[in-house]
């Protein structure tokens, strides 16, 4: 192999590996854990309200359970507004961030619209959430080179079927909460404990 060819291949390898490293770090941020716990609490509170265990209106609880994670996830942009330089990220890491941001925006708009119009009572929204989570995890598995995230995606799609099947039962709420804890907060915790945030 010519020296130039070897040099080109090495540069491509370095670029790809740095990208994968950046994407891995992005995936290891605590956002998944924060969102998974917050949305699970929202589902559990709604279930508690239906059962008469809580007097707090579900809409108020959801405003907190969705609003606070958004503030947390937008911390980088908020810091940038106050003059801090945004961290340098490669295209794959940025694409990963944009993927999750896009999913979050889509689900928030759909969720607010479904609550405002009363369509949330038809029960299909939980299945949409599970389906979108499956897509996000499936794409993330490729971007981060973490093959096990594909199985999380598959589990979300199985969960989507279960949530749709139970959409008219109140038990869909604890099931959705369990999916959020096991398939969003769980992978978030695993990634966080794998240590990419240590030493920052």
């Amino acid at each position, binding site marked *: 192999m010519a020296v130039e060819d070897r040099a080109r291949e090495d*540069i491509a390898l370095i670029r790809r590996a740095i990208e994968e490293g950046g994407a891995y770090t992005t995936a290891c941020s605590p956002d998944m854990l924060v969102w998974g716990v917050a949305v699970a609490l929202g589902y559990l509170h709604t279930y508690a309200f239906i059962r008469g265990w809580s007097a707090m209106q579900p809409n108020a609880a959801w405003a907190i359970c969705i609003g606070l994670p958004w503030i947390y996830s937008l911390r980088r942009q908020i810091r940038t507004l106050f003059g801090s330089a945004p961290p340098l990220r490669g295209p794959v890491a940025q694409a990963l961030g944009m993927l999750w941001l896009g999913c979050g925006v889509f689900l928030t708009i759909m969720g607010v619209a479904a609550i405002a119009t009363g369509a949330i009572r038809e029960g299909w929204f939980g299945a949409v959430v599970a389906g979108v989570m499956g897509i996000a995890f499936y794409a993330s598995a490729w971007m981060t080179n973490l093959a096990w995230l594909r199985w999380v995606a598959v589990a979300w799609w199985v969960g989507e079927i279960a949530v749709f099947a139970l959409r008219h039962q109140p038990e869909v709420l604890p099931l959705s909460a369990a999916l959020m804890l096991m398939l969003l907060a769980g992978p978030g915790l695993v990634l966080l404990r794998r240590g990419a945030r240590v030493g920052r």
Partner: protein
Amino acid sequence: MTDYDHAAIDELLHSRVRLAIVAFLAGAKTADFSAVRDATKTTDGNASIHLRKLEDGGYVAVKKRFVARRPQSLYSLTERGRQALLAYVAHLENLLPLRGGRSE
């Protein structure tokens, strides 16, 4: 040393696996053993050997800790490793006729 002096390239980074490990850690800052192994698409034994060589060369630092009673090794790139990677990239660029310019 000339730009075409291929033998002058850092021997520690001349291995594709070690180069991939160093580049991955340059992007990730810190990662555990399985993340490094998965990223470089190698086996436990192979990754372990190459990480040890990089550690011995001072390019990679390792921190060991216990998570849920299981040992975990966290790897990060040292300043020496970062400088070696930058020097290696600069050397590679000089080997390319169009991008390096000087080697034409």
